């Protein structure tokens, strides 16, 4: 398999594995918040895929996998946009300095 493709496939496969096997136990900060009784201070912020759950998909594993893939796609798009902006700014700065 092309190594470049493999570099993109590994995070997708990891998201797949995470949707199946990731621990559902509270993380370290949640544990501290539970132990010291300030977990109730947490405010639920509204977001499209809150808690890595895809709306209308009831299967938990499929829901987590789909949101993971969406996360990867969003990150990819964010970096594509940043690349375009930085590239055009670099050209602009260079042309001005000539």
């Amino acid at each position, binding site marked *: 398999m092309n190594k470049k493709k493999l570099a993109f496939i590994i995070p997708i496969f990891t998201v797949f594995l995470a949707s199946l096997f*990731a621990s559902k136990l509270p*993380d370290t900060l949640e544990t501290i918040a539970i132990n010291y009784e300030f977990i109730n201070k947490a405010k639920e912020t509204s*977001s499209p895929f809150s808690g890595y759950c895809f709306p209308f998909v009831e299967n938990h594993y499929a829901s987590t996998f789909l949101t993971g893939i969406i996360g990867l796609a969003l990150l990819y798009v964010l970096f594509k946009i940043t*690349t375009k902006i930085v590239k055009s700014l670099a050209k602009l700065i260079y042309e001005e300095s000539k």
Partner: protein
Amino acid sequence: MHIPDGFLNNNLAGGLLAGALGMIGYCLNKILKSITVAVGTIAGSVSEVNLGSQSFGFSENTSKYFQRLTLVALWVFAFQMFNIPVKSATSAHLIGGVFAAILAGPFAGFIIMSFVLIIQSLFFSDGGVLALGANILNMAFIGSFLSYYVYKAFSNKSQHFGVFAACFFSVMAASLACLIELGLSGSIVFSTAFKNMMSLHFGVSCIETLITLALLKVFRSVNGESNE
């Protein structure tokens, strides 16, 4: 380690958010400057350089550079989803700051971690929106940017020791910063929670080291790079 909204005092969270946005701007500017210098270097050595629509070496190299940053970010995001059980009734996941900084440098490492945290916060409620500044300080600035210099200081003789020192610093210093922020916000009494917080994260720092070493090896071999 993602702090949700409500745990921190609004003034502290707002101040940290402003600082984080400033640091993102500074790091992007640093990346932009290094690329602009590269343009000048390439332009100086090539007689005919077209900076218009036609791409030349600079464009290709910049694309490759950003493709690498994108890949590192995707790996960090994916592996952060994988929670592993540690101790009884607690789980932890990779922070990935050291992994990002070693592969991309301190400035780009900070940007990678910040972008991952922004996406997690805005789309998945993984960390609060107002608390984003604190999360960026803990996991991107301390966990990646500062950890890179720890790695540099300790990696002269052995890269593995450098990764161990950086990962240990990354997790322990980030958790200490988190505890200070919670203490300043009145959510917790610093002195009573210190031992519990640090002992919990000691195990996490060992996991962070092992995963970072493995990921660095796999990432480099997949990208056809030397593991030195």
